[in-house]
């Protein structure tokens, strides 16, 4: 009784093949098991997918706001407000002069009437403005500086120069609120990062709880497998795969939910965007991000399962 009898010699490739086959077997066996308890599985998948949808939604929100502030950054244009008494003809001459400046690419004139129309349309004060006899809005020249990369000092110099024209009331850099938007977006990004980390933890806990219940239901099976010589890895494999499947299904469902949300929101968002003359298009998850979502949800499922198994399997005696 000193050495193991029988056990035919197997090649490494053979052993590896059996190992892969075993994994494939358990992968589909766990899938079959999930399908056998559709209600419980569906509940878990639903809860997980709602959590994932929240996280994905937050992510998309940040992504879109970043896009918005990004696209605005490229148009660091200067709005030059003329004095109210300045008339259209004088403004046109000034516009031509400014356009002649070497630092300027283009100048766009927004007349009193046009300014009023836009203001009426977007402010919601249409009727109130109707009551005014004369148009109180000044003419505005939108000046686009040469280089997008013009540094702050150069822009400041250009603005000072513009303000020295007698017809000019003041010049204002549109960048200001872009900067604000950018800092808000940075803050938002951090907030979402924290929220999403919490949601990831929630997913791990939800999955852990599901696996814990599953483990309780299959306690006898685990025990018997151990008694006939199953290793820890063998015993926990089906549960890990259960976590994988539930996570993956939740990811797919979350993707569908996110698509629905974006679809519902896209029209109102595009309406708002058109108000700001932005060529803003609501961004959706890219292919990479979609794959990332699925991979992440499956991974969180596996992690949740693994975390519970790590503690619970050791509780099932005998070892």
């Amino acid at each position, binding site marked *: *009784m000193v050495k193991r009898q029988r056990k035919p010699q197997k090649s490494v490739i053979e*052993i590896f093949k*059996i190992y892969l086959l075993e994994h494939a077997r358990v992968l589909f066996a766990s899938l079959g098991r999930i399908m056998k308890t559709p209600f419980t599985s569906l509940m878990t998948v639903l809860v997980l997918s709602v959590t994932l949808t929240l996280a994905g939604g937050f992510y998309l929100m940040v992504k879109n706001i970043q896009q918005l502030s990004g696209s605005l950054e490229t148009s660091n244009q200067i709005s030059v407000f003329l004095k109210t008494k300045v008339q259209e003809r004088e403004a046109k001459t000034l516009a031509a002069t400014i356009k002649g400046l070497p630092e300027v690419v283009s100048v766009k004139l927004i007349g009193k009437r046009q300014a009023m129309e836009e203001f009426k349309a977007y402010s919601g004060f249409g009727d109130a403005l109707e009551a005014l006899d004369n148009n109180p809005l000044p003419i505005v020249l939108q000046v686009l500086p040469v280089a997008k990369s013009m540094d702050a000092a150069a822009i400041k110099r250009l603005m000072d120069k513009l303000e020295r024209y007698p017809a000019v009331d003041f010049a204002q850099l549109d960048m200001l609120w872009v900067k604000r938007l950018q800092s808000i977006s940075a803050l938002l990004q951090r907030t979402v990062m924290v929220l999403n980390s919490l949601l990831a933890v929630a997913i791990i806990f939800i999955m852990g709880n599901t696996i814990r219940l599953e483990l309780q239901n299959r306690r006898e099976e685990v025990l018997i497998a*151990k*008694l*006939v*010589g199953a290793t*820890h890895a*063998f015993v926990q494999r089906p549960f890990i795969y259960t976590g994988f499947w539930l996570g993956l299904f939740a990811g797919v469902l979350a993707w569908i939910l996110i698509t629905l949300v974006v679809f519902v929101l896209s029209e109102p968002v595009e309406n708002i965007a058109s108000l700001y003359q932005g060529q803003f298009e609501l961004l959706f998850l890219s292919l990479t991000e979609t794959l990332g979502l699925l991979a992440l949800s499956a991974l969180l499922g596996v992690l949740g399962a693994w975390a519970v198994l790590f503690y619970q399997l050791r509780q099932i005696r*005998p070892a």
Partner: protein
Amino acid sequence: MLTFDHVSKRYPDAGDALQNVSFYLAPGEMAFLTGHSGAGKSTLLKLIAMMEKCSRGHIILAGKNLNRVSERQIPYIRRQLGLIFQDYKLLLDRTVFDNVALPLVVSGYHHHEIGRRVRAALDKVGLLGQEKKYPLALSGGEQQRVGIARAVVNKPRLILADEPTGNLDPELSEEVMHLFEQFQQVGVTVLIASHDIDLISRMNYRVLKLDHGQLVQEG
């Protein structure tokens, strides 16, 4: 094959279940382990199967001191054993085939090999042709034979049976015992815990008798 060297087992809340037990079981030997209920029979078998750890002494199984076996190695020790239980411990939602195949599946056998061995084991216990049935469709005697097929499918060198006939009528008990004799005849070591004195005395094998955790009769 199996050596108990001054083995004691104390359960934290129940005192000594085994005290200073020493014996030796030769390869290919068959023996009965007997004693009153609570004498420590199950405990002794659990120590061999590493379901419990002994408090004192040494157990040597096939040349290996079980005190020096790490938790990770336990599965590999168990694969050398065939365990049989009074309550059969079958998986009721699996077919007879799957139940018997379990020890091979956990050891990573190829499925051709599994099919061949499972049928051979079922043949030995007289259940060939029943492999698609579920355990509850079988009688108690048949269920226990499924349990025995599962225990021998891995060709263990030591079979440990804990009250294998406890739930069976005398006739079926005899049949089951006869099965064990057949395994012993092909060289397997067999240790059977039982308090069925009648049955044991009718068979001519070595008897180890426990009384309150102490070995009072050996031979």
